[in-house]
């Protein structure tokens, strides 16, 4: 139970950190509520490159090109899930 609570807390912290990073580079986008950042054309390819640049240096991960898919970048949640997975795989 305790470990579950810890994991949840940890994930929330990471998501907040990612949101802070993204909001820092794109303050005009509502990352908390947008669910179709790519499909609705809110983020363009240059934005994605900036996001990758921030995430790689903050979390010391490598985001390979094949991870650049709409599913991974459509929302704050999906970006966070991708970061978690890549950190685990690393």
């Amino acid at each position, binding site marked *: 139970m305790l470990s579950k609570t810890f994991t949840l807390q940890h994930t929330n912290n990471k998501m907040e950190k990612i949101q802070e990073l993204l909001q820092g580079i794109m303050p005009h986008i509502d990352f908390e509520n947008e669910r179709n950042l790519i499909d609705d054309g809110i983020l*363009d390819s*240059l934005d994605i*490159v900036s996001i990758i640049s921030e995430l790689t240096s903050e979390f010391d991960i490598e985001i*390979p*090109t*094949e991870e*650049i898919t709409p599913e991974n970048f459509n929302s704050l949640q999906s970006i966070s899930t991708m970061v978690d997975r890549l950190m685990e795989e690393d």
Partner: protein
Amino acid sequence: MQFNTIEFAVFFLCVLIIFYIMPKKFRWIVLLIASGIFYLLAGINFLAYLGITILSTFAFGLGIDHIHKVQKVNLKQDGLTRDEKKHIKARYKRNRQYLVALNLLVNLGLLFFIKYFNFLSSNFSRLLSFAKVDSTPLLLELVLPLGISFYTFQTIGYIVDVYRGKYAAERNIFKFALFVSFFPQIIQGPIGRFDKLSPQFFENNEFDYKRICYGLQLFLWGLFKKLVIADRINIAVNQVYDNWKTSDGVSFIIATALYSIQIYADFSGCMDMAGGVAETFGVQLDKNFDHPYFSKTMPEFWRRWHMTLGTWFKDYLFYPVSTSKFSQKLNKKSRKRFGNNAGRLIAGCFPIFVVWLSTGFWHGAELKYIAWGLFHGILIMSSLIFTPVNNAISDKLHIPREKLPFRMFQMIRTFILCCIGRVFFRSPSVSVSFTILKKVITDVNFSAFMKRLTYLNMGLDEKDWCVAAVSILLLWAVSLIQEKYKVRDLIAKRFIVVRWIVFYAAVFAVIVFGIYGPGYDASTFIYNQF
């Protein structure tokens, strides 16, 4: 064998009959043999080039797949530390990279040698002459194999995807050969992806009357676009551009706008024909056009024009370059220095430049294509820079951006920008392009043009102009409907008499109004040369 020939019609009909006579599990073999024959008819030498690409990509794909498997086994060992795992991954990744590099060397090497050797040789010799070194360029008699730029890119996409672990390599060389050589798409694409295209050859191939009808309708619509619109306009465009020394500015404005329509009708017509033929065999090819002339900005235009080439460059060139260590550093540094928006644009210049230089180069071994590519690169960058500025201005002026008049203005602006690019694409050389652009600015006199009735000198008579105008209007109307509905579904819902009237009208239009060239030689498609 062109799609718009009697020979192809006979060939296609034979393949279709044999395909559905054969038991389901052998149907893909019919397609493979048909593709082999189709390609063989283009020339036996060409088959050798295609064979090298198929064999090498197949073998390297298996090699890369094997390394993936060995890596997995090694990572499963007990007691490995994080650093040891990292080391194993890096070692096997390097090995996979070697194989990808070797494969690229073979396939791109072949493409470069055949397509660009003479271009590089003559330009190198020109450079030497600037340095006052006398040299005669070494020019070889090389004939470009049919569809080499398309199938080479398709195989590169495959090998990179296998390297990235997106899917496992194909283990049956004949199935792989069909993926590369499928006859409806080998000449001009669309550039297919293995995971989407290949499975379709082996499933969903039962006889389906509705699907075959839909396929034939799409083929007929493509034929209409090619024979009635593109080939008719082609006469007027050639008349003006072939006589560029004497043609005036107004003729060039008309001819360039017509050329933009021609190239769209030609290429998208060919895609409809390819898609229609493939559909009769139960294969859905990727979409290559999404009414590009309805685009409001240049980036949108390139998301709707030659879509499979655009996504290919995005996946296999733009992202690898822009997420490389060099580009990442540049991105961070420039955002820190110039702010997030300006910084990302400055850092984005390099990958965008690489992509558009390559796009231009892919189209042909001539400086005019490179100039055209770079022109579009500049337009894309300008759009990224000025869109926020334009939005701010229109907000201040209270211009409703979603209303039709503003959207029309944006579409016309995008079309005009495209037309400027087309001047480079259609002209015989870069210097002639600039001469034409100069004429468009300085040699424009509409009243003199009307007095001389120059249109009669553009190779088309009044009847032809009427047919062209009505056909273009029809193309525009169908495109508008296609934005919201599926035209073939709409036709299918009509009463049988109406359906047959539409069908007969289309056949009649193609036969009566189609341009069949001297001696009924079918004219080639513009993108055939690439």
